[in-house]
């Protein structure tokens, strides 16, 4: 993407009318410090060198762009999978934590905090902290701790301290609240690694930049493999929106490339148990960002639901609110059942067990139709290991 795109954040931290930093004064010095430094830190030659070397040798990038032959023939188009599932720690989340841990080091911070829902971002943060020898504290909702035990164990093995968020609904949004409160209480030595393109400016922009390596590689790989760096369509699932932001980033200004964001509609959009923020949400402020969020008419935040713990966030990043409102990206949704069918299909046709989150992106395929010559890239944001107990239940593999 050009340095300044129609979809870049503006000088005050807004994408159109979305974004900003609606932070309490207590966070002002922290956020300001980051805002004033992130761009020039990220642009330093040494930083770029260190970041790219870690992505290559530690994370295992570039991830393959894999032509999914049998999936393609089923859906009558050319389908490519961007294999973020092959990253170290099993998802795209690590692209961001490696980037932010380097920023934290540059800022001289000694103590790292993070929030996590399913535990993927928590694991990726714990990994980065172990790598750099920094103290790591991960906030996780009490409810999520109970349902994501393997990831809690992983974080502990990696040396992180996992603190249960016991306030509110005891899930991701509350873990985020607790992380923000921790940051308020530790204003000088602590760095907060946010896990998606959410939170106050400059986080959405910074996280999108770190994840943009996905679309950067995609472009080169498409050119090599198809002779054209532009696909017809890119499909990504969307919780907070970081894998989607990364997959869309370098194509935002190529309006011929259709961008499809798939939200989780849980048990059905209007079932009352859903996480389809773009459809059910309205403008407001969540975690210091003006964006779309699920809320009551009184402005209280609603707890969303999805079978996939990584998608049940009641907001979306401000970039996506802007992409959705401006019509640049198309927002669709997939239910729990549709996602589970997509998991099975990818296992059977391609021998890949996807994460539940990523399966929502795959679940868009049966809902649309492409031309035979269309090149469709699906961002396979993560692998299914963490979801095995859900799959065992859903597919009846228990004894």
């Amino acid at each position, binding site marked *: 993407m050009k340095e300044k795109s129609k979809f870049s954040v503006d000088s*005050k931290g807004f994408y159109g009318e979305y974004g*900003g*930093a*609606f*932070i*309490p*004064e*207590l966070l*002002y*010095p922290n956020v300001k410090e980051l805002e004033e430094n992130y761009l020039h830190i990220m642009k330093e030659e040494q930083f770029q060198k260190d970041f790219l070397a870690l992505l290559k040798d530690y994370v295992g990038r570039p991830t393959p762009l894999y032509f999914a032959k049998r999936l393609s023939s089923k859906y009558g188009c050319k389908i490519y999978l961007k294999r973020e599932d092959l990253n170290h720690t099993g998802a795209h989340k690590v692209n961001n934590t490696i980037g932010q841990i380097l920023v934290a080091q540059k800022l001289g911070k000694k103590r790292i905090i993070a929030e996590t829902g399913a535990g993927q971002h928590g694991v990726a943060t714990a990994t980065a902290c172990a790598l750099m020898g920094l103290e790591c504290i991960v906030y996780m909702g009490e409810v999520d701790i109970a349902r994501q035990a393997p990831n809690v164990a992983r974080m502990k093995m990696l040396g992180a301290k996992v603190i249960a968020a016991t*306030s*509110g609904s005891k899930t991701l*949004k*509350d873990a985020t*609240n607790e992380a*923000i*409160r921790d940051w*308020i*209480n*530790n*204003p*000088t030595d602590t760095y907060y690694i946010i896990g998606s393109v959410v939170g106050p400016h400059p986080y959405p922009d910074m996280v999108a930049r770190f994840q943009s390596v996905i679309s950067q590689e995609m472009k080169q790989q498409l050119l090599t493999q198809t002779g054209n760096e532009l696909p017809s369509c890119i499909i990504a699932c969307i919780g907070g929106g970081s894998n989607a932001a990364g997959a869309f980033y370098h194509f935002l200004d190529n309006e011929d490339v259709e961008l499809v964001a798939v939200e989780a509609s849980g048990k059905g959009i209007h079932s009352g148990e859903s996480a389809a923020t773009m459809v059910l949400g*309205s*403008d*407001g*402020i*969540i*975690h*210091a960002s003006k964006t779309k969020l699920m*809320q009551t*008419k*009184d*402005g*209280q*935040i609603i707890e969303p639901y999805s079978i996939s713990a990584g998608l049940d966030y009641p907001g979306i990043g401000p970039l996506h609110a802007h992409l959705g409102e401006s019509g640049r990206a198309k927002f669709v949704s997939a239910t729990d059942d549709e996602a589970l069918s997509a998991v099975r299909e990818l296992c059977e046709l391609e021998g890949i067990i996807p994460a539940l989150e990523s399966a929502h992106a795959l679940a868009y395929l049966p809902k649309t139709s492409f031309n035979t010559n269309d090149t469709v890239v699906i961002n396979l944001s993560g692998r299914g290991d963490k979801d095995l107990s859900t799959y065992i239940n859903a597919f009846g593999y228990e004894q």
Partner: protein
Amino acid sequence: MSNRIKEQFKKKSNLLSIYFTAGYPKIDDTVDIICRLEDCGVDMIEIGLPFSDPLADGPVIQNSSEVSLANGMNSELLFKQLQGIRNRVDIPLLIMGYFNPILQFGLEKFCSNCASTGIDGLIIPDLPFEIYKDKYEQIFDIHGIHNTFLITPQTSEKRIFEIDKWTTSFIYMVSTASTTGIQQNFATDTNAYFERINKLNLDSPALIGFGISNRATFKTACNFSQGAIIGSAFIKHLENKGINEIGSFVKNFS
């Protein structure tokens, strides 16, 4: 337009300002608590509008907010409860609440309702000074509602002077870098911070809040500012003793 907040600072020193969450412990306690506080000699009141995700608050206010929301509190009901409050209460009244519920109600309508019920000002912890100036100041001004800004031990001097310039009520001096809650004592470097701010000779009066819980912390705060704001400790008292014992709490600070 007369400014009830500024007038109060002219009349009184060592102001005691109390925060409580509207609709807590019971939904209909709001007005009763306000009247009792004034009768006991409290100088100013912050009426808390509850929010599901109060980022800057510790466990006590998180809990009172949760209870109040479960009781059914919202902006519309709060203004209904406050109707006619100016027939009974003279001290300055402010509403303290997070920005999202206010935005959903409509900031314009919120301010206009404040004006018509006799609410003097707002404290919105997650509406930063810059965004207020850029986008919302006019709405406050049209309705004569005073906005109040926070400063913390980390706020730069330059920023404090800037905030001072835009303040038409008072400066809310957060005692320590922390979420709201109860502290037995101030940290050792807190006095140095209070002293530093005191020496700036700001135009606006200042009240110290966050962590004021007993006579000692209140007195210390008063040595360096025009008074103090007590929140969590009062809510804890309500939780333990109920609203009939408000007098015994307030007496600690006179």
